[in-house]
């Protein structure tokens, strides 16, 4: 029991982990986005600080260059050599942004900014008071060594990593905090279902065993009828019990696949459901050939039981159930109420019930769907409202 209990808990933990991963993915995406925005602003601020530091030097260069331009202006055209300096490159532009002379390496100028960095070149744009040589704009250019950039990237990487790890732990802590009430409720419900299911087993087995042991020969026909009703009801509960057991305890167990002849198994299960069918005067029509399937016995039994149980449950009184087994085919056809065409795609969904007058949780066909999907068995359903339903399993 404890091994099974662990499996169920593991199953819950799986869904909890899924929720946790989803939350964390969303959380990390948001945190990453936030850090990117902060990183961008930090980078921009650092860039502005670096440019502010460069501004003083470049202003000095611009002042010196202006003086040289003034001299050249007065001696032009006798002297026509543009003043050069090893420390920087420069250029002059007129009021219409036409280049008068340029020594710049990076030719693209942004006249709207007084200082900026572009493609590793820092440009300082000085507006001249006197247009020497017709120049309104004096551009001073120096090459950026990129040291500040490397230092920023290093800092940003370290801080981002630390912040990311901190936020990740905070995220996990928060997620667990939020999930805890939900987890407690799920565990409580799970424990309740498991306990209830377990407690059903003993009385149900006792009822079914005692019904089998009762001597019908000494009973009056009236009592036999009553006994059959008790038997029928007990077997319905038994099917429900097995479905619940399967869902809560057994579906995560490791499969014990073996070769199973559906012809034999169908016979056994029809015999089991005979009492239920008789109660509604439903006739079984069997056309059984050998049909071998390599599958877990518990699982294929759940498939057949649920298909037969459903066929009985939604059948007309005095109707029939035709079961055919052939090589690679199991087919069950009833003369029941049928299902509307638009509802057919949903009939294998969990908790889906098309007729509220009949009992059940709507989990039977969901189990069928899960098991057939696991084994790659194809389900084909045809149904006519008021005439009946046919379900074919092919593999």
């Amino acid at each position, binding site marked *: 029991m404890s091994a099974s209990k662990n499996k169920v808990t593991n199953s819950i933990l799986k869904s909890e982990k899924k929720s946790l991963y989803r939350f964390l993915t969303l959380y990390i995406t948001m945190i990453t986005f936030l850090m990117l925005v902060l990183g961008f602003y930090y980078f921009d601020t650092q860039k502005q600080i670096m440019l502010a530091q460069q501004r003083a030097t470049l202003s000095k260069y611009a002042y010196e260059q202006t003086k040289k331009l003034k001299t050249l*202006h*007065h001696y*032009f*055209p006798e002297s*026509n*050599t*543009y003043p050069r300096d090893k420390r920087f490159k420069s250029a002059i532009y*007129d*009021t*219409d942004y*036409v*280049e*008068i*002379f340029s020594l710049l390496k990076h030719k693209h100028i942004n006249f709207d900014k007084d200082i900026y960095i572009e493609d590793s070149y820092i440009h300082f744009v000085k507006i001249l008071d*006197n*247009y*020497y*040589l*017709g*120049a*309104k704009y004096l551009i001073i250019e120096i090459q950026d060594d990129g040291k500040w950039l490397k230092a920023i990237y290093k800092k940003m990487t370290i801080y981002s990593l630390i912040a990311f790890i901190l936020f990740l732990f905070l995220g996990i802590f928060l997620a667990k905090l939020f999930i805890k009430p939900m987890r407690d409720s799920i565990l409580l419900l799970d424990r309740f279902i498991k306990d209830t299911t377990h407690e059903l087993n003993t009385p149900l087995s006792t009822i079914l065993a005692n019904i089998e042991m009762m001597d019908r020969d000494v009973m009056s026909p009236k009592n036999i009828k009553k006994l059959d009703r008790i038997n029928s009801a007990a077997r319905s509960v038994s099917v429900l019990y097995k479905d619940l057991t399967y869902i809560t305890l057994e579906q995560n167990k490791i499969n014990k696949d073996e070769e199973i002849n559906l012809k034999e198994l169908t016979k056994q299960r029809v015999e089991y459901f005979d009492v239920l069918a008789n109660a509604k005067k439903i006739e079984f029509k069997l056309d059984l050939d050998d049909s071998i399937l390599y599958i877990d016995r518990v699982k294929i039994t759940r498939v057949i039981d649920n298909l037969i149980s459903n066929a009985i449950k939604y059948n007309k009184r005095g109707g029939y159930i035709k079961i055919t087994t052939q090589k690679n085919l199991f087919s069950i056809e009833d003369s029941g109420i049928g299902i509307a065409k638009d509802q057919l795609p949903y009939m294998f969904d969990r908790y889906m019930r098309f007729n509220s007058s009949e009992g059940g949780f709507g989990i039977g066909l969901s189990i069928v769907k899960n098991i057939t999907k696991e084994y790659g068995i194809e389900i084909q359903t045809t149904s006519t409202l008021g005439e009946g339903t046919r379900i074919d399993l092919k593999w």
Partner: protein
Amino acid sequence: MVKKIIIYALITINIYSSNIFDQKCVPCHKELPTSLQQMFMQYLQLYSSEKNVKYILKYYLKHPSKELSAMSDLFIDVYGIKEPSKLSDEELKKAIDIYWDRYKVIGNLK
């Protein structure tokens, strides 16, 4: 051969001196102490671009005034303001274009 060179030189000088700038502007400015080159640099220092300089020169030549002149007050007090030009717009444009091309800075720095 020498004759040919002399004739060619004379023809060239004739063509060169036959443009409207040399005919209508240069003779009067020869008498002033400030050269056309110096005046050009004064205008360039004040108005910067080709478009601005040409526009203001044309306007000044048609409507000369102390306020528009790029020359110093002392210069104007001594030599006065010129008479409004009698050249047509087309002739003025041609003369100013020649003036710009002859003394411009763009393309003449190295």
